[in-house]
């Protein structure tokens, strides 16, 4: 891991240079990715480090988002709370609501803890439409970013840098936190709360505090979100926001420090790209989650870290060769699967079926060819590619296993 500081430096440099490297739409996606990364890191502190799986983190994200919008309106981006400091309000409200919710939910552990967090978040979500002064009803609450400190905050670039600074500082703070006595106790809470109690620690207070700190960073992420879109609507309290952060964090690897951030950023990027290309992008997201959990249960980053720590012992060239062979075979299988899914989606779509008259099924254009749905060719093509890909990857795996056996 001796290259870690260098890698970090390069990443930060690229992030700083990003506005000059990519298009506006991509930069907008980058803002979303940063926010998702920070939100996932907040969740990762609670779930990965302290072992408490929250199903209701949208609540603290949402509370932070609304607090920031109200503060934007109240202060006009001046005085005590100039625009760049508005995320502090999100953090503070996150912290307070986290203390409150954490006090109740950390009285239980495991499934019961998860259920309480879910219930509290749903309670807020159900309540929000009725509290029009706070949550603004259907229309939500909107505001404007005002200039401060000589920065306009009107352009996307300004917003990007605001988000970048807050995200990096927050992740830095989370890293430092993990090194403090309280941060180490989070691990103890995850590993064996019972033992911690017998050592004389107050596990309920510890759990509450860690919950609150996690909620605080979720609140900062929420504030950045509402500052980015200059509005907040009670849809940010919906359960799919809570679910997304769970899935993202696990895909990245919830137990390695930057795992959740990378998971959050990657899946947001994935959503940004695929939601323009296909209607069933959520299905793909789900499939990715299931596959990662089945074959890489440590998550993408977790698995990478594990491989770097315990190399296969086959040398760099051979390992890279194996990885490449696997990736190519999997890409073939994935292409076959995507083809089948997309074709099915089109066949099953109401628009297409409205066009089916007297048993004539018109051709469907997919990947710049026209395919007849009643002929064998599209199905054979998709299934065939999928089968070939899986066969190839099985072959690669068998060879690796045979080599290992020969060594042993």
């Amino acid at each position, binding site marked *: 891991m001796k290259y870690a500081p260098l890698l970090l430096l390069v990443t930060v440099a690229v992030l700083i240079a990003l506005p000059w490297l990519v298009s506006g739409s991509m930069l907008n996606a980058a803002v979303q990715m940063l926010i998702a990364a920070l939100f996932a890191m907040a969740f990762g502190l609670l779930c990965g480090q302290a072992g408490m799986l929250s199903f209701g983190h949208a609540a603290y994200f949402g509370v932070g988002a609304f607090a920031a919008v109200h503060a934007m309106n109240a202060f006009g981006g001046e005085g005590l709370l100039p625009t760049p400091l508005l995320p502090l309000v999100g953090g503070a409200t996150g912290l307070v609501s986290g203390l409150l919710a954490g006090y109740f939910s950390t009285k239980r552990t495991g499934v019961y803890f998860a259920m309480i967090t879910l219930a509290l978040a749903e309670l807020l979500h159900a309540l929000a439409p009725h509290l029009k002064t706070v949550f603004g009803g259907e229309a939500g609450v909107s505001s404007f970013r005002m200039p401060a400190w000589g920065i306009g905050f009107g352009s996307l670039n300004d917003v990007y840098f605001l988000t970048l600074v807050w995200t990096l500082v927050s992740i830095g703070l989370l890293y*430092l936190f993990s090194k*403090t*006595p*309280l941060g180490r106790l989070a691990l103890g809470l995850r590993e064996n709360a019972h033992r*911690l109690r*017998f*050592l*004389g620690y107050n596990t309920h207070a510890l759990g509450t505090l860690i919950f609150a700190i996690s909620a605080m960073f979720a609140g900062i992420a929420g504030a950045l979100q509402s500052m980015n879109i200059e509005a907040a609507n009670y849809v940010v309290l919906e359960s799919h926001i809570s679910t997304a952060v769970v899935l993202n964090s696990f895909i990245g690897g919830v137990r390695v420090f930057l795992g959740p951030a990378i998971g959050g950023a990657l899946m947001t990027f994935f959503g940004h790209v695929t939601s323009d290309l296909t209607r069933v992008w959520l299905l793909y997201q789900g499939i990715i989650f299931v596959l990662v959990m089945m074959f890489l249960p440590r998550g993408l980053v977790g698995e990478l870290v594990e491989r770097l720590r315990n190399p296969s012992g086959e040398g760099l060239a051979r390992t890279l060769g194996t990885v490449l062979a696997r990736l190519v075979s999997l890409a073939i299988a994935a292409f076959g699967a995507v083809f089948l899914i997309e074709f099915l989606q089109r066949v099953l779509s109401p628009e297409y079926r409205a066009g089916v008259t007297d048993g004539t099924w018109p051709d469907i254009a997919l990947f710049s060819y026209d395919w007849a749905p009643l002929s064998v060719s599209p199905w054979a093509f998709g299934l065939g590619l999928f089968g070939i890909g899986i066969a190839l990857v099985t072959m690669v795996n068998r060879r690796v296993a045979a080599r290992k056996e020969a060594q042993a």
Partner: protein
Amino acid sequence: MSDPILSLQHVHKSFGEAHIIRDANLDVIPGERHAVIGPNGAGKSTLFHLCSGQFAPTEGKILLNGKNIAGLKPAEVNRRGLARSFQITNIFPGVTVFENLRLAVMRKHNLQFVFWRSAARLRLVNEEVDDLLTKIRLTDRAQTLASQLSYSEQRSLEIGMTLASDPQVILLDEPMAGMSHEETDYTAGLIREITEGRTLLIVEHDMSVVFSLAHRISVLVYGEIIATGTPEDIRGNARVKEAYLGEEAA
């Protein structure tokens, strides 16, 4: 005889209809190694749970340094100078041996809600952890994940964590359970070393360990302490033979 450091007075514990501990009386003298033996189901573990605060007694008093601790929570009992190990290995498996001990040591220094200092720079804490590592002979395993230790190493770690709060009284619940002969000898030596200057109350099934290690032995049968005395007294006690030792010899 000096005043007992730990004293059970007419302690009674029942779970509904089941009377597990019936009128137990026990005095543990400061500095002694005191063993509790008894057949399976006699209530030895329950007795430990009562002393360490996991259960509250239904009736009776438990005095630690003359103050009643009956009904106090485990954390409070620990703060008053009584620490225990568990029959089932009870460590933090997913973190390093060093971290296990550091978590245990930090409590003594009242480091709980501290998020403005680096744990790596707590000089005193880290020195104490190194000290403990030497005592339990795990120095070269410091950076190993606790889950990857051998069974007896895990038991040593468990004992190390019990020591971390620098308790006056240590309760060890079957520290040799499931160990080979070599491991048992090794652990017995370790216990002898680390209990120097402290008071030990131990539950153990291995009679050779009990009789060589303990200054005094109490025999618990069906929730009652039927005899307390030196190993020789206990060997010669007719009631004990009948209730327990004879049964085992047969």
